[in-house]
């Protein structure tokens, strides 16, 4: 089975199709991660400020934010990608390809990250926040010097979890015209009965997840 011809064939596919798809996936996941983390972090901070146990509880603002996060979170990723395609077309100009996939992935990812970060900010000991207040720290200082600072290990594990999740959803985006490894595994592998491409893609995804998880674990331990 693994004859010379097989490897020549495999190398050709790898060079022309799988290889570029790996970089496409990395770009897609990388861009999603950066954008979703920035937006999610912002939302989480706002949720932590205006939440019922927050620094300046404001029920109305919190409810609006909460509604946005919950609504977005209630869509399964594939459905969200399809459902918001008109908006994607408005924002990106197309619904096909790598760049078009980043938009829905970012929306879904931001909501996911926002909720997880909010939870980890909420877990910061109330007395610690009181202590910071007692020496005259401002709300901004309490957020960044106390809440975020104390949450860094859990922020790292949330980032690891999110990144692995984005690798998975990026392959879903591939199924509906997003490109990347998911599209290759489906179009050139599964639907073309080409097992070598299918399992090569699967193996590369496996390696990606392992690397992300190992780096995440190492960084988490270091941050404690």
């Amino acid at each position, binding site marked *: 089975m693994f004859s010379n011809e097989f490897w020549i064939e495999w190398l050709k596919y790898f060079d022309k199709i799988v290889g570029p798809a790996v970089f496409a996936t990395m770009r897609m996941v990388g861009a999603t991660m950066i954008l979703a983390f920035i937006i999610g972090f912002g939302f989480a901070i706002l949720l932590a400020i205006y939440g019922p146990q927050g620094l300046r509880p404001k029920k109305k603002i919190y409810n609006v934010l909460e509604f946005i996060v919950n609504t977005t979170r209630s869509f399964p990723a594939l459905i969200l990608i399809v459902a918001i395609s008109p908006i994607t077309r408005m924002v990106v100009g197309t619904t096909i390809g790598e760049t078009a996939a980043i938009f829905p992935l970012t929306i879904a990812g931001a909501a996911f990250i926002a909720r997880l970060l909010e939870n980890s900010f909420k877990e910061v000991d109330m007395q610690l926040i009181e202590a910071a207040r007692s*020496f005259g720290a401002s709300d901004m200082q309490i957020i960044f010097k106390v809440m975020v600072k104390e949450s860094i290990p859990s922020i790292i594990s949330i980032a690891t979890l999110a990144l692995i999740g984005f690798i998975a959803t990026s392959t879903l985006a591939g199924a509906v015209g997003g490109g990347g490894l998911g599209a290759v595994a489906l179009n050139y592998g599964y639907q073309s009965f080409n097992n070598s491409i299918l399992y090569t893609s699967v193996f590369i995804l496996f390696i990606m997840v392992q690397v992300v998880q190992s780096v995440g674990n190492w960084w988490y331990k270091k941050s404690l």
Partner: protein
Amino acid sequence: MIEIKELTKSFGDLQVLNGINIDIPRGMIYGLVGRSGAGKSTLLRCINGLETYDEGSLVVDGVDVKSLSRKDIREFRKDIGMIFQQFSLLNRLTVYDNIALPLTCWKYSNSYIDHKVKELLEMIGIPDKINAKPRELSGGQKQRVAIARALTMNPKLLLCDEATSALDPKTAKSITALLNQINQDLGITIVIVTHQMPVLRSVCEEIAILESGKVEVSGPVEQVFLQQPQALKNLIGQEDLLLMEEGINIKILLSREISSQPVITKMARELAIDFMVLGGEMDNFRNNKLGSIIINIPSEHLNQVKKYFADNNVIWEFIERNGQSSAEAG
């Protein structure tokens, strides 16, 4: 230093503080005691504006806390340090960075921060732990670090919220000794919230006992312990005493003057009567010892004993067999 007048506060329907009046002079160590839910921690938090109050006034150093804007209250809090039961240190920062945190928040220069942190570490007695993380410290050391952090802004007032409640008795004692030292060396007024009697006795000059949002008793700590008001008894709980069925049970309170004399044996010799000693205790207070002894005398000697007590200025009271102290006392 702190004048509290007719202070009230409620959380929804629950009245937590119900007309509190307290005066705390500058330089004093003042104790707020009471059972859980008596409102003592809420009252403490009103002093530095962590909690708001509904009615009445709370004036610290001539400033009514309620009148302060959000910005002013941050400035106001620079003068008030606070320590907590669970130490409230940042787990991810070193001892140095934890103590430096208030100074970095107020943007002091690095050289000043370095100088101040090292000076405070010397004072709290753990200069070798400068680069340790809180998880490497014992409870007592953590509280020392928290005290150092509370002192970084050179406050005039230090608030202690159950600061020794999470510590074992010996460590608690060393922390109260440190508080005493801070009070004497730096002249900082200290307000302590606690339910631990040994802490009260060893550091506080005056105390106020809170019961369901009201000050039931207040005054110098020795006086309160000698008078044994009902609020204090409620707080300590009833003593389990094995009282005699026959004769009369009497509790003699040993004040500073009385406790230095062999008053009991002297009475036995002078009156030539016999009696039994049922129990007794002596406790160390800030500057002296106070305590009580419970004796059982035969009924026929009561008048003799009463007269002896009166002649010698001994404070005493009857104890009924159900544990209640009788109203007739001298």
